[in-house]
């Protein structure tokens, strides 16, 4: 061990300890910078070590993330990070493994692997940077792009309906699903922390601005002036209120079997407002869709968290551990029908 790290050994780690000496190569003003800073700020508070932390990513601007984290890191191939991370956990379940992916990486080419990592409940913390565009390949539309998105490959506007990452994750049976946004420097660490504390697959959609190819796709959600009307901050057990003065809320309408926006007053009281319950899957599925209609806020925070006990890797490795050592390879080869040649 070199002197520098020996001296540092016993000191608590600082954000700078999680930064590498590599030049960050995102475009100036890219939302990825804010997410990186936030992660470097959050990790020291989580009490983790650099050596036990691994960032695994696919391909895309977002997937450059591991190069800038002074932990272990694996920049893999397009869409396959969840599969590689699953194997890594099967080799060493003690590691803290974060997966960084994009809307194209995770939902287009890698949709299959993401789906299965989510349902298997592998103890991975999956961060999907959603800029609704393929950044690295210079701006083609992605599976999360809104219909009508103009891009080099859709000069007249895209035609195919988009995918909602949160609904996808819930549909894939993920036990933990949350959303945050690159501009929310205070909110992001809370969500990262909750994801890290959760035992099992944790999926976090991070709304991210690509200043070059899809600037302002999230403007309504992030602009100071409009944000209060477009962000719904969820808290378990608390009524779903939003607006500058919390004057609006979300109500369940049994007639339409859906959530609707209401303004408090005129007979609408706090008691009519839906209370967030992280453990309710039907509620989470409805909350996930908020924001798709005009006037609806986008839900932020932990949308769903229902721990499942043992994780996939614990279960697999547990079985191996309890069987291990019963017989040797030599025993196995000698078992069954054998004969001796003198």
């Amino acid at each position, binding site marked *: 061990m*070199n002197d520098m790290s020996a001296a540092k050994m016993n000191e608590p780690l600082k954000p700078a300890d999680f930064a590498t000496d590599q030049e960050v190569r995102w475009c100036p003003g890219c939302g990825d910078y804010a997410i990186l800073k936030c992660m470097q700020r959050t990790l020291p508070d989580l009490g983790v070590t650099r050596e036990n932390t*691994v960032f695994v990513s696919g391909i895309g601007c977002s997937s450059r993330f591991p190069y800038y984290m002074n932990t*272990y890191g694996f920049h893999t191939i397009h869409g396959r990070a969840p599969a590689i991370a*699953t*194997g890594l956990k*099967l080799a060493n379940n003690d590691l803290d493994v974060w997966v960084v992916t994009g809307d194209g990486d995770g939902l287009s080419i890698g949709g299959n692997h993401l789906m299965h990592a989510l349902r298997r409940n592998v103890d991975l913390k999956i961060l999907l940077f959603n800029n609704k565009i393929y950044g690295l390949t210079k701006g083609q539309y992605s599976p999360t792009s809104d219909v009508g998105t103009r891009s080099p490959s859709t000069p007249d506007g895209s035609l195919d309906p988009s995918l909602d990452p949160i609904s996808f994750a819930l549909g894939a049976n993920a036990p933990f699903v949350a959303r945050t946004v690159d501009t929310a420097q205070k909110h992001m660490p809370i969500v990262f922390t909750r994801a890290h504390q959760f035992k099992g697959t944790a999926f976090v959609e991070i709304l991210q601005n690509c200043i070059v190819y899809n600037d302002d796709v999230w403007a309504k959600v992030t602009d100071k002036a409009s944000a209060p009307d477009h962000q719904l901050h969820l808290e378990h057990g608390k009524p779903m209120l939003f607006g500058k003065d919390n004057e609006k809320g979300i109500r369940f309408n049994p007639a339409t079997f859906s959530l609707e926006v209401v303004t408090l007053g005129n007979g609408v009281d706090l008691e009519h407002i839906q209370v967030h319950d992280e453990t309710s899957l039907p509620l989470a599925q409805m909350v996930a869709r908020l924001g798709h209609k005009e006037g609806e806020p986008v839900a932020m925070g932990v949308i769903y968290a229902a721990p499942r006990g043992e994780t996939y890797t614990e279960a697999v490795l547990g079985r191996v551990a309890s069987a291990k050592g019963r017989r040797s390879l030599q025993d196995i080869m000698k078992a069954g*029908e054998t004969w001796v040649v003198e």
Partner: protein
Amino acid sequence: MSAEIQHLESAVVRFAGDSGDGMQLTGGRFTATTALSGNDLATFPDFPAEIRAPVGTTFGVSAFQINFGAKAIMTVGDRPDVLVAMNPAALKTNLGDLRSGGVLVVDTGTFNPRNLQKAGYDADPIEAGTLKDYQLIEIDISKLTLEAVKDFGLGNKEALRCKNMWTLGLMLWMFSRKREPVTNWLQKKFSKAPTLADANIAALNAGHAFGETAELSATLKRYQIDAVKSEPGLYRTVTGSQAISWGIVAGAELAGLNVMFGSYPITPASPVLHTLSGMKELGVVTFQAEDEIAAVCAALGASYGGALGVTSSSGPGIALKGEAIGLAISTELPLVIINSQRGGPSTGLPTKTEQSDLYQAIYGRNGDAPLPVVATSSPGDCFDAAIEACRLAVKYMTPVMLLTDGFIANAAEPWKIPDLSTYAPFKVQFVTEPGEAGFNPFKRDEKTLARNWAIPGTPGCEHRIGGIEKSFATGHISYDPANHQKMTDTRANKIAGIANDIPAQTIDQGEATGDLLVVGWGSTYGPISEAVRCALAEGLKVSHAHIRYLNPFPANLGDLMKGFKQIMVPEMNHGQLKTVLRDTYLVDAKPFTKVSGQPFKIVEILDGIRAMLGA
């Protein structure tokens, strides 16, 4: 018994019937008993791709061939001496192979108009007298089986299922084999349904008794094949899939690593997944992934984490793994990829054998992406070949392609159980200290050119790797042109250097120089070997070299070929090794190919040798 027992050196028996007739099981049990009697043997299970093809059709025929003898058995035999045909379709599809004068046992109970029509016979071949070239033995096995099991209260369908045991009983009698191993096995298999065990045993005994009675009336002959003289030791039968699985576990143990095996089911590779999934006792972790891409990625992720990542598939799945194998080459992580080859392209012939993925193994990736390729040549050989693949993977920090094929995977042969303590370990030394200048993952061993390996969890050695080109000096991302040249050269040199770390190519049979060198690889070992033996006996100046290391080739291979006037390369593909040999050595290697989904017959290769030598 009074009648004479005829002693034979070897015999080839083929059981053929409908998919539902249990021919694979019959063959498997005959094999086990034969192995226990000390014969050498080789088997060839040949079954349809359909799980349950319509009853009685020619494409639903399932066959199992065994060649066994008192001498070393190299192939499954060109032509059966005995053919058991359980229905007209089986007769139709297999009769062509039976040697003239061979024994033909037919279950006449199935030769009804409907089955004959399904098999495409206009007239009953038995009545039409078209089978007079063979020793035809007509038995209504169906009826005799029903009689044998009538006291067990089985339904007609269940009772008829015992037909295969009746037939097996007869064959055990014919070749003077013991019934106990089969009865023990039946008792174990049907321990929860003792009536079924008893019924099957009754059918087995009835078939055996039939032989004895028929012998008295001199309609049936009995044969004896003595034990082969093999090296002393403890033996068992082993299939290629078993041996390769055990070899992987042995290799990982010698490397001091745990196995993490990622796979996705595909014929004929699945038995490896099944075998390893049952080996938790040895710490083997298996992962049935969502597809082949995830399977190889999980294996690579596990290697990154310090396990030995292994993945297995067949051609179509290997195609999907290509990009991730490239990542393993670029990040220089160990990985073993097993390809149980089958007929291609595309879905091709899933249950039939071929060696047509050699190009895919050597060249099948984007970029200059060399990796070592090792081939197995028989079921038992899979064990050592797998150990070699593991050794090269960890010693050179590289993915290794281990080629086997559907024939080897399913075939069984007697195998001397190796003593694991005699294998030299090749323990992996992880880097645990960053060193003065800090940890550089791409610092290399001067001799092997293998990079430093530190695994997550090691304090001070935190580092990032990925598929982008890395600086030779620092391991960081580098787009520098000269650096890419250097790294590409280095990766190529690392793999090329393995030629000095593998055994020199030997001549398997024949002289070191001569008129013709037959160069083979993989499962053609048996037929080439026998064909060359015959050719040598005819006085031809021919030799046989069988290549295990297909990339890089053994260092002496070029010189070795120079000792011969001609070179012939029999392969079950359209001439792939031939092309690689020509490219590497500028030699005039001549192709000799077969892609029918069936292994080479000895005589085919022998004729090829004669033709090349004008003999």
